[in-house]
């Protein structure tokens, strides 16, 4: 709607938003871990009205030939029409693939999991971790919510027992070797303003989007840029500083819920 977009732009230029938040303010974040009994690990994260459920399943399989002594991480996201009227049934579209890839890259490149500890027999048998992302309700900022849910679910994961060539799912004792807590922060650009935690209305009028994953020691470990427009060099430097700052806050919330 034209008039609504114009109104939102006016507010953003004044430094506030439709829901009275400041430009660099998050909505209320809640994390619930261990919500699915059958899964090895799970977590439900809500940021405002956005809600994402992540489940972790584990299995044993053959490693990739180039990393014979490392476990395998597979991240998948499915956007069901239940979550938003803009999602369609059918094969995964670019949005769901992008969502899964960003979360995957954050965890993988941030070395959040000690993959070498997931090796059972070099070149023969390793653990495979399936991370399934399922948005329940989409009100913007799915990337941050999914990454937060994925990392809290991994922290919540208990590995099943492996004995004589078969996986015993009933016996879960050992925790998954998680080394680092990755925090993902998404920034959107509207005009020359930068916003964090966009709602769906703000995502609809954004020029561009940058998602940045940071690790515990303040390193940036993954970046993804989306949207049609570019970002100015001065802006991106500010975004990097803010990402580290926000990442610290997100990490605190994740830690307090595990």
């Amino acid at each position: 709607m034209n008039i609504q977009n114009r109104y939102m732009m006016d507010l953003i230029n004044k430094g506030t938003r439709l829901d009275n938040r400041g430009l660099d303010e998050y909505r209320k974040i809640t994390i619930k871990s261990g919500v699915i009994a059958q899964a090895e690990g799970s977590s439900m994260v809500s940021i405002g009205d956005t809600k994402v459920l992540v489940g972790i399943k584990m299995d044993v399989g053959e490693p990739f030939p180039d990393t014979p002594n490392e476990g395998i991480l597979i991240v998948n996201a499915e956007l069901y029409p239940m979550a938003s009227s803009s999602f369609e049934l059918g094969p995964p579209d670019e949005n769901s693939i992008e969502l899964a890839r960003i979360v995957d890259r954050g965890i993988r490149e941030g070395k959040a999991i000690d993959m070498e500890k997931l090796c059972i027999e070099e070149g023969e048998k390793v653990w495979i971790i399936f991370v399934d992302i399922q948005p329940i309700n989409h009100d913007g900022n799915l990337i941050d919510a999914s990454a937060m849910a994925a990392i809290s679910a991994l922290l919540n994961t208990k590995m099943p027992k492996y004995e004589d060539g078969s996986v015993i799912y009933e016996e879960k004792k050992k925790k998954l070797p998680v080394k680092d807590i990755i925090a993902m922060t998404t920034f959107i650009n509207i005009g020359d303003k930068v916003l964090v935690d966009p709602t769906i209305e703000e995502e609809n009028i954004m020029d561009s989007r940058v998602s940045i994953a940071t690790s515990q020691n303040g390193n940036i470990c993954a970046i993804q840029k989306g949207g049609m427009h570019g970002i100015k060099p001065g802006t991106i430097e500010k975004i990097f500083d803010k990402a580290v700052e926000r990442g610290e806050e997100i990490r605190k919330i994740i830690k307090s819920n595990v």
Partner: protein
Amino acid sequence: MNKVFKKTRDLVLPGELVVESMDYLPGRNCFREGNGIYSKRLGLVYFKGRVVEVVPLAGPYIPEVGDMVIGEIKEVQYSGWIVDINSPYQAFLPISGIREFVDSLKTDISKIYNTGDVIYGKISVVSALKTIYISMKEPQTRKFSGGRIVEISPVKVPRLIGKGGSMINLIKNKTKCRISVGQNGRIWLQGEKEELAVKAIMMVNEKSHTTGLTEAVERLLDRGE
């Protein structure tokens, strides 16, 4: 054989039997089958004399002839515009439905309304197959420029308007905002105290079922200055 299964303000589900008697008549959101009167929606039953009525608690906007709605132009076509009216059904605004005469062969009708424009129109036709026509000929109808839009649940709109417009006039008088309410749950407003008006509207949306709501809204409006 006069069986009344529910009393006023009882909760009913879609398809639930309310009365089994020919002495009663089905009102809004009810239908008769055989001797029984059943509910069409999830809501509360009200007996108004011999008429059984269900006031829905939730649900989408179903257009009715004569409703004023706020719609967004989705598509410009050869002979009119397709309008989104926040309903499961799309509406159509034909060029015969606007005030001035337009020769569609000679004019680009996107100059009149273009995609993204927001209009306040009246539902003029609802066919059995839910083909919906909008008219912009009525006196109150217009195209909005400026202001903002808030959305509430369509079933709460009657509560927001209040008896004889009491609630909406209260908000208008206290905030001095210009407000247009669409039956489809969209509300357009413009004025200096927009924020306060939005707060009041959202309060009605959330607490529509409580008693003494008008007083609570009045207190909020007095306090918010």
